[in-house]
């Protein structure tokens, strides 16, 4: 039986592994793999957590109160909740330095998507133009992944931008505020579509609206932000568990792979990994190697391997991420209503904004405020806290935020390289991002347009509240080892096989040649399954 070694258990790694196992390969996975604590009171709703636990603040804010967002300490409204802090634990061997880019890494069992908000949006033909395949080639893998992880959604006004693949479950129950917005859209559809180029529809999420195997349909407990205790929200560790049930799968958790080494023929021979418990470096022999450490992690491993092999410090070009804006809004029609704690908490609506060309599509996700902690919001009101609490009590159900995503392109001045220092044990990863020309103007125009759209939906944007997130914050990293039909150095083939090392494949976003304004992970999973189907 042929053996494939995969590094990384994020969405890319586990969906590659699952597909490779189904083709009869033996799969070994090397992973850091920090694990979460078991869920707390899985049957309790959000409000039952507050009333039923002995120490609800310990759960919601963390035992060291690290979930409290103190004035002056936090640029973003919300951080990662304490229950997901394990997914942000780092390793000592990864040091970074960056300009205009705030990178995020996860070494969790399941990777970054253990913290994700589960948005799943397939790329369409226009967005795949720079790829060496089209939507039809990817569609079976989208359908297969959707059937495996459970994605809900609907063929609605967004279908022109979001292809409708097989395996969609029916959408979740809408919360009252989102339902109101959708009704307003329906009554102004023509104007919004024709004059403002705005299409509104249901979000697509990897959340069960129907039972699937042992996983239960969402029961609207309102605890999504702290991690779904019943696995209704898909996380990659579930697929890792599925792989682990196969006799042909071996999981080497607790290892950080620093580099691979090659024989004289240029074939990868082994992976060298540091055990987390501090023991000796371990060498894993390799027949075929698949890198799935996340685009940044894979790039670091690739650069370090080349450096150790040749002494050369390479520069990888084309780093991409989606620029994101947060546009908070208030819906006066909801003032004075009770917010709904018993509902799904992340975005339930999406807005598609047409652009001059199909690639210029802007993708927005609409989240109405529900069980997210209130103190970071109250603190920002230009009021004393007592008045702030009064205001919040009355407008809580009326608040929401639009998360706006812009596309990104590969540009030569967005780079990743190493600083090998003098005598440093482990080279530092150096990231440099230069925003595209005209970005500020594009942001301004989009905000203006979005404000008009929100007004049509009966809402307004409080002055001074639009927030441009730092580059890196969307965590949709891509582009550093792109697919290229021509066999150029530091690129991969259409099957994501390295043009430099014949038995090396790359199964994550590093290979993407264009980043549409859409959440990337569904396509990462589908593409990883496609790569596994191509491997020989």
């Amino acid at each position: 039986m042929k053996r494939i070694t995969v590094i990384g258990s994020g969405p890319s790694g586990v969906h590659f592994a699952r597909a490779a196992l189904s083709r009869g390969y033996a799969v070994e996975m090397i992973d850091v793999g920090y694990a979460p604590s078991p869920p707390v009171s899985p049957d309790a709703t959000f409000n039952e957590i507050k009333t039923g636990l002995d120490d609800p603040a310990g759960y919601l804010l963390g035992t060291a109160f690290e979930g409290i967002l103190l004035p002056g300490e936090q640029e973003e409204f919300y951080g990662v909740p304490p229950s997901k802090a394990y997914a942000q634990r780092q390793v000592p061997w990864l040091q970074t330095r960056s300009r205009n880019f705030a990178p995020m890494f996860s070494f969790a069992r399941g990777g970054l998507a253990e913290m994700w908000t589960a948005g799943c949006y397939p790329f369409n033909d226009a967005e795949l133009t720079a790829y060496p395949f089209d939507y039809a080639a990817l569609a079976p893998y989208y359908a297969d992944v959707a059937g495996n992880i459970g994605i809900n959604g609907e063929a609605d006004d967004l279908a022109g931008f979001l292809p409708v693949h097989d395996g969609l479950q029916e959408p979740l129950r809408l919360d009252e505020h989102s339902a109101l917005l959708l009704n307003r859209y329906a009554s102004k559809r023509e104007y919004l579509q024709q004059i403002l180029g705005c299409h509104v529809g249901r979000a697509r999420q990897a959340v069960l609206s129907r039972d699937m195997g042992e996983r239960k349909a969402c029961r609207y407990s309102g605890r999504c932000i702290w991690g779904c205790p019943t696995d209704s929200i898909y996380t990659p560790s579930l697929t890792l568990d599925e792989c682990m049930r196969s006799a042909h799968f071996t999981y080497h958790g607790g290892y950080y792979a620093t580099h691979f080494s090659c024989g004289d023929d240029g074939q990868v021979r082994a992976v060298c990994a540091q055990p987390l418990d501090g023991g000796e470096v371990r060498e894993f022999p390799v027949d075929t190697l698949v890198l799935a450490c996340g685009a940044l992690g894979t790039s670091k491993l690739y650069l370090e391997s080349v450096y150790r092999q040749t002494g050369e410090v390479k520069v990888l070009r084309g780093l991409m991420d989606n620029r994101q804006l947060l546009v908070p809004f208030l819906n006066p029609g909801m003032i004075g209503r009770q917010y709904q704690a018993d509902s799904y908490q992340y975005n339930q609506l999406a807005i598609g904004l047409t652009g001059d060309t199909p690639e210029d599509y802007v993708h927005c996700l609409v989240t109405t405020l529900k069980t997210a902690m209130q103190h970071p919001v109250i603190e920002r009101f230009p009021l004393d806290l007592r008045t702030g609490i009064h205001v919040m009590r009355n407008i809580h159900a009326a608040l929401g935020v639009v998360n706006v995503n812009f596309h990104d392109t590969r540009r030569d001045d967005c780079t990743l390289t190493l600083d090998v220092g003098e005598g440093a044990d482990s080279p530092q990863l150096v990231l440099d991002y230069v925003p595209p020309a005209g970005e500020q103007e594009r942001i301004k125009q989009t905000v203006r347009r979005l404000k008009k759209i929100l007004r049509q939906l009966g809402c307004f944007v409080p002055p001074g509240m639009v927030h441009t997130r730092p580059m890196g914050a969307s965590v949709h990293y891509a582009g550093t080892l792109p697919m290229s039909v021509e066999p150029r150095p530091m690129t991969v083939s259409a099957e994501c096989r390295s043009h430099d090392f014949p038995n090396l494949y790359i199964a994550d976003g590093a290979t993407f040649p264009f980043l549409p304004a859409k959440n990337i992970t569904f396509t990462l999973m589908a593409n990883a399954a496609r790569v596994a189907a191509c491997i020989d």
Partner: protein
Amino acid sequence: MTERAELLTECRIFSRYLVDTDPGNYVCDSYVAAVRQLRESLSPTSSFDRLLLRLARLHPLITRSVDVYARFFAPASSIRRRLITLLAIIESDGTMLDRLERPDQAGLPGFIGGMLWRSLLLVVLLSIAMLILLPVQLVTGRPARGRPQA
């Protein structure tokens, strides 16, 4: 007074200011634990910062005046940080749900009307606090932690 007793008094006064009620044992214990745990972030960093905290501990009405002043002229001061810490604990505690989450039954016009007089009160309190505190802050020469913001 021991540090714990001092923090319990502070917690009671701040809680009356924020939500009009004395805190239960759980909130008190959590507040004491939080201030100890986050000591570095919650301790005053200047004499003016310390003064704001001392004043705010005297009476809920004074807490309000100090808070409204700090919101605009010392947004990341120790007093604001401690109040936010207590607010975060209160909002985690199920026994306080009603006080933080139940909207008034007054509808939009009632809300707007209520906001008018609350804003008026805020302006009055801010003006008084500015008269007293701004000269002191200018004389001591250093803002409490954090830059003023609107």
